[in-house]
């Protein structure tokens, strides 16, 4: 009589209408492609068929800077140095600073934040207050302060910017840990007698690492910009050229007017890289549903 007997199984849910499958999208892969290209070019620069970034390619009877040509894709600067290879070589310092600073921030801020979120109590209060103190300085002022008091080597600059990233990264790690520490699998681990260290490293870390990875990409972008700003103020790495220093070199009124490519080649490289990092980080954040981000 009743027709229900035949359809015991629940009807399959219509997926396409309600659950939109999440993808990273082609824009993400484009951005990743650009980042890989830049990092690859920067890492392999000495082995690529590039012109020497320090050599002066003077042409008899003509005054540099020379405009872009087949010989010099991005033109040359006031000293007739090839802007194309200078831009690629400039990426080296900027990227090293960017990635090592964020690695430092992830290591210190991440572990402090995770411990604060897990242990709670007075430790949490102290660490959270410390983060707030760090966040009360405008980042750039703090960076200028530290770099001016210490030396201006590559390590100091990376560490300085790394210190800046402790607080934002730490707060995110703390928030993520707080959420996961309430979950059943942590309780389960505790019931079977797991120690705190084990819970932190084996249960919580793998879950916190994912949102941290997304924020790391955004962080690298911010760090590259801060380094550029420091360079622009004449406070970045003393040796070697960075994108910031290259841009500064091209911004004298006379150079900018007669040879805008000297400033605009590194500006474009910097802009595209920062945008790619931002976009990739943004997509990852959406994909993994990371909320509560305050950089």
């Amino acid at each position, binding site marked *: 009589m009743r027709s229900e007997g035949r359809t015991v199984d629940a009807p399959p849910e219509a997926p396409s209408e309600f659950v939109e499958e999440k993808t990273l999208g082609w824009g993400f892969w484009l951005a990743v492609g650009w980042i890989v290209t830049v990092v690859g070019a920067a890492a392999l620069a000495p082995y690529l068929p590039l012109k020497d970034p320090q050599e002066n390619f003077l042409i008899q009877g003509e005054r540099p800077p020379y405009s872009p040509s087949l010989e010099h894709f991005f033109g040359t600067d006031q000293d007739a140095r090839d802007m194309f290879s200078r831009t690629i070589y400039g990426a080296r310092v900027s990227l090293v600073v960017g990635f090592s600073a964020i690695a430092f921030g992830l290591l210190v801020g991440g572990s402090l934040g995770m411990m604060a979120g897990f242990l709670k109590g007075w430790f949490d209060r102290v660490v959270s*207050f410390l983060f*707030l*103190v760090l966040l*009360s*300085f*405008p*980042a*750039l*002022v703090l960076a*200028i*302060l*530290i770099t*001016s*008091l*210490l030396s201006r080597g590559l390590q100091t600059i990376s560490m300085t910017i790394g210190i800046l990233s402790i607080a934002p990264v730490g707060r995110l790690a703390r928030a993520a840990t707080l959420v996961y520490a309430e979950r059943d699998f942590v309780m389960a681990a505790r019931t079977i007698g797991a120690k705190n260290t084990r819970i932190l490293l084996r249960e919580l870390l793998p879950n916190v690492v994912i949102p941290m990875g997304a924020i790391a990409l955004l962080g690298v*972008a911010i760090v590259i*910009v801060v380094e*550029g*700003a420091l360079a*622009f*103020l*004449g406070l970045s790495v003393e040796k070697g050229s960075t994108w*910031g220093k290259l*841009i500064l070199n*091209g*911004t004298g*009124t006379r150079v*900018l*007017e007669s040879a*805008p490519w000297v*400033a605009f080649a590194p*500006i474009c490289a*910097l*802009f595209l890289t*920062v*945008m790619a990092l*931002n*976009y990739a980080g943004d997509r990852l954040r959406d994909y993994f549903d990371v909320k509560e981000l*305050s950089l």
Partner: protein
Amino acid sequence: MKYWTQRLTMVLALMLAVSMLTFASMNVLGDPLFNILGPISGDRKTPENLVKIEAAEKQYYLDKPLPERYVRWLGDFVTGDMGVRFAATGQPPVTELVKERLPRSLWLVFMAQVLALAIAVPWGVWSASRSNSLANKASTVAAFGFVSVPNFALAVILYYIFALKLGLFPLRYDASASFLTRKTQLLLPALTLALPGAAVYQRLLRTDLITTLQEDFILTARAKGVPRRQILFRHALRPSLFSVVTIFGVNAGGMIGGALVVETFFGIPGAGTAIVEAILREDFPVVLALVMIIATGFVVLNFVVDILYSILDPRVRS
């Protein structure tokens, strides 16, 4: 009431911590005596230099232990005396310098915020009301671009287009010009600071507006035949400003940081250039005063935003 007392205590504790950190780092990592006297500071053997050293130590209280110096400095600072500069003459006093430089930077940030809102509100409303068109996709990309462009790069780009090529703005800031001219000179630097801010506000406003536009009261208004423009600006805009208010304070802090770079590039003698100059010359009293003022402003601004926030949404207080 208890909530506010707690918050206020927190703000004061933060300020104390910031000042201690700055004071200590500059006194421990730097060498104040060297910055005042120059190379002779290490020479205690020559009697005449020793006299100078001891006089300087007395004048700047360098012979006292660090905590005592800190308390002295804090007492002076709170009563409005920011001390004497380390520069050879000690003139002008830090307070005078701050009085001269700070208003320019405040004007700059104020103009930037006004510009940012003036751009963001119409832009956000427009893009929320046409949320699927092709032009809107372009506007999303543009907003993303503005968020990603570093302020020093944007400064160079805007300077190149508007000052060098179009000649709409003067090439250098002229501090001796008349009041109105000085303010128009600030327009281009303010725009540099405003564009990224505008893009952030626009994105937030757009998201909130799209949610608001799906509410029943909008449907009611539409059913009553209220004109579209009026629905957008009179009915939907106000309840959608929540996120913008929240981010406003944070963004002002970011703009102060950006002002350092922008002022230096455009040659505006404001607090930003003062801080950069003072740091390069290791003129610590100036750095200390300005860092404290900026940090205080930043913390207080966020406190005010918190108050606004809890007035708009009383649930935050619990």
